[in-house]
């Protein structure tokens, strides 16, 4: 190519100034607030309204709704799930102080919950024949929890991050070992060992408020009074922690989390602040422990184990570590989901609803969405037709969790009478296809999605629903992974602001 043939780049002869921002005028930052991307239309207006509502309005609405729940649901099971959820919310609020605000990775958190529960059991049972009134026990336990948190927090003076995590995890392990072997503690039976403190002999007393005993069960089912008790504690703790967070201490915690060295350079008593965060978290955990022990009329070492620690951490991280509203949403999502997934019929609703929602979330209302949904449905009927033509036994297997949804699905997804080795093969194949799905793009992905979705439905109906106990954790894990990819700082967590 000669010079003459070379295309001339489109460069103007002289300097030009396009309309808009001018040289030397930096107005990016000045208009920073206007530049926030807002959703348009009615949805945007509603979102803006909701955003403007103060936190106490949200709290009031939430507490009222939760308090009205027993009106709508008379089932003891639903009420008990609601109680557990609020108790988890309380636990998550406490963990949020240490992890979300203080930025201290405390893996010994559940030990404080257990400590609270055991303290309550020791102070109001026949174990040592101590029967303090509830109004005395609860404050004592909270103080014990706070002091324990202070002591366990001491290693945080020199340790941070994963080093602190491993030390606190070790304390948790010590707690488990001590309570499980506490029936021969210096020759005394303190914790009842692996049997815990409970049963008729131990007679752990329920709460006694304003001169009335709150029996654990009310005419055979869950006593709804405990829901109100835990809600009241929750509201008080929420408001208290909110005020702490908006005080100088709260801001100091945040600066400590962002940059411990800078916090120290500002003269903040960094060590003291860390211990304070540990103490607050531990006190809330201990308070939750008292409610747990009172409701269950006993405490058992197996309750305070690693799965619970992981569950509470999941709630905090999924909801958005550092945001009070976030960890509450996290607690609700995790606990309600785990409960729903317990029953095969409910789990089916959750599974298909999540798939459809996820597809809507990714493709919106587009041609691709129509292709994926239509293709999957068509593929199902074709496969079902072929399979039933070959042998009736291919499609008339037993269904788990009868409900209207499966009646419809039976004509679409094949449920063979006997799956044989295909159980394992299809399960592994599904994982393989999902991994493959992350590698392809565009229409290839759409094309691959169709068989993937059908395979997923097949595996779900034939393999996963036959073992709901394992399935619910797999589904929860899948949700956690997807949410964390879509929103790395949790559902309501604030986007991290990095200094650039």
């Amino acid at each position, binding site marked *: 190519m000669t010079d003459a043939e070379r295309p001339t780049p489109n460069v103007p002869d002289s300097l030009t100034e396009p309309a808009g921002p001018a040289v030397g005028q930096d107005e990016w*930052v000045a208009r920073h607030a206007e530049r926030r991307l807002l959703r348009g239309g009615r949805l945007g207006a509603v979102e803006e309204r909701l955003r403007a509502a103060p936190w106490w309005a949200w709290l009031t609405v939430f507490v009222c709704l939760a308090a009205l729940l027993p009106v709508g649901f008379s089932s003891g099971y639903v009420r008990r799930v609601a109680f557990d959820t609020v108790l988890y919310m309380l636990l998550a609020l406490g963990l949020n102080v240490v992890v979300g605000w203080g930025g201290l990775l405390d893996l010994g958190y559940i030990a404080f919950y257990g400590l609270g529960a055991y303290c309550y059991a020791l102070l109001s049972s026949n174990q040592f024949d101590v029967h303090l009134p509830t109004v005395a026990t609860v404050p004592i336990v909270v103080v014990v929890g706070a002091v324990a948190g202070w002591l366990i927090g001491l290693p945080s003076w020199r340790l941070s991050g994963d080093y602190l995590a491993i030390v606190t995890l070790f304390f948790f392990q010590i707690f488990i070992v001590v309570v499980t072997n506490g029936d021969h503690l210096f020759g005394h039976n303190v914790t009842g060992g692996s049997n815990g403190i409970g049963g008729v002999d131990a007679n752990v007393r329920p709460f006694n408020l304003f001169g009335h005993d709150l029996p654990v069960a009310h005419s055979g089912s869950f006593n709804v009074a405990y829901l109100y008790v835990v809600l009241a504690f929750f509201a008080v703790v929420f408001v208290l922690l909110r005020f702490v967070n908006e005080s100088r201490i709260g801001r100091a915690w945040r600066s400590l989390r962002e940059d411990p060295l800078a*916090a120290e*350079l500002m003269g903040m008593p960094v060590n003291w602040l860390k211990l304070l965060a540990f103490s607050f978290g531990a006190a809330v955990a201990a308070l939750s422990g008292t409610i747990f022990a009172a409701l269950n009329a006993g405490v058992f070492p197996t309750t305070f184990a690693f799965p619970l620690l992981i569950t509470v951490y999941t709630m905090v991280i999924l909801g958005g570590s550092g945001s009070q509203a976030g960890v509450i949403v996290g607690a609700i999502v995790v606990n309600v989901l785990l409960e729903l997934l317990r029953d095969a019929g409910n789990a089916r609703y959750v599974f298909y609803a999540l798939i459809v929602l996820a597809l809507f979330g990714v493709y919106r209302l587009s041609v691709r969405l129509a292709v994926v949904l239509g293709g999957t449905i068509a593929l199902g009927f074709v496969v079902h037709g072929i399979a039933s033509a070959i042998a009736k036994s291919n499609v008339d297997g037993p269904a788990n969790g009868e409900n209207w949804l499966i009646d419809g699905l039976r004509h679409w997804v094949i449920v063979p009478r006997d799956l044989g080795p295909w159980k394992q093969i299809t399960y592994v194949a599904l994982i393989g296809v999902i991994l493959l799905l992350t590698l392809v793009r565009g229409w290839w992905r759409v094309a691959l999605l169709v068989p993937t979705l059908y395979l997923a439905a097949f595996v779900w109906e034939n393999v996963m629903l036959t073992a709901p106990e394992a399935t619910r954790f797999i589904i929860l894990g899948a949700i956690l992974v997807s949410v964390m990819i879509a929103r790395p700082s949790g559902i309501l967590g604030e986007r991290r602001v990095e200094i650039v």
Partner: protein
Amino acid sequence: MSVNGTPLLQLDGCDTYYGQIHILQGLSIEVHAGEFVCLLGGNASGKSTTLKTTLGIVSPRRGRVLFGGEDVTRRPTSYRIQKGMAIVPENRRLFAPMTVLENLEMGAYLQGGGAKDDFDRVYGLFPLLYERRAQLAGTLSGGEQQMVAMGRALMGKPKLLLMDEPSMGLAPILVERQFEIIKEVHQSGVALLVVEQNANMALSVADRGYVLSTGRLVLQGKASELAEHEDLRKAYLGR
């Protein structure tokens, strides 16, 4: 030196180590009340370590740190800050997800978050910060972030302000502006100990200077004399 009385800050034969590495080797410097001292030196000469030793982020194995005549060698950082030290750290180290206002408050943590006249003083010095007070510090530009870092350090009414590379990462025009502000702060009566790579600029505004090399003091004197010093010019000033 003709300045009389007890120095505001005195490092007396400080030996500071990072683990087994000997950084400061018997360093002695002093800053008097209201004085503007700059600390020069090449890379790894111990400038930042001098500031860390002063603040108590690291403690010297030998030697003493005196502040206002009081031995603070074994005192924690927060104590020294309370006694009147403040620092504009290297790379500013703002609390990015917190607002400008909150950052300033944190500068006066030990004074309970800052009184109104502290804010007025800082906003008077940096009117822009008042406009930006509700904005997250991490979203500010580099020059603005430097202002927040300065303002944050001044919130606690320090007697001695330490600055680590105040001109780092700033546009040339902002470097000049930065040093004007530093002069202004100095004129309000605050003693300054400034670590700076931009030796020309630093020596043109400072009263005195120290030159470090591998943790040892190699040269000290009036800033005007240092600026003319043959070896220094060759080594750092590039003239």
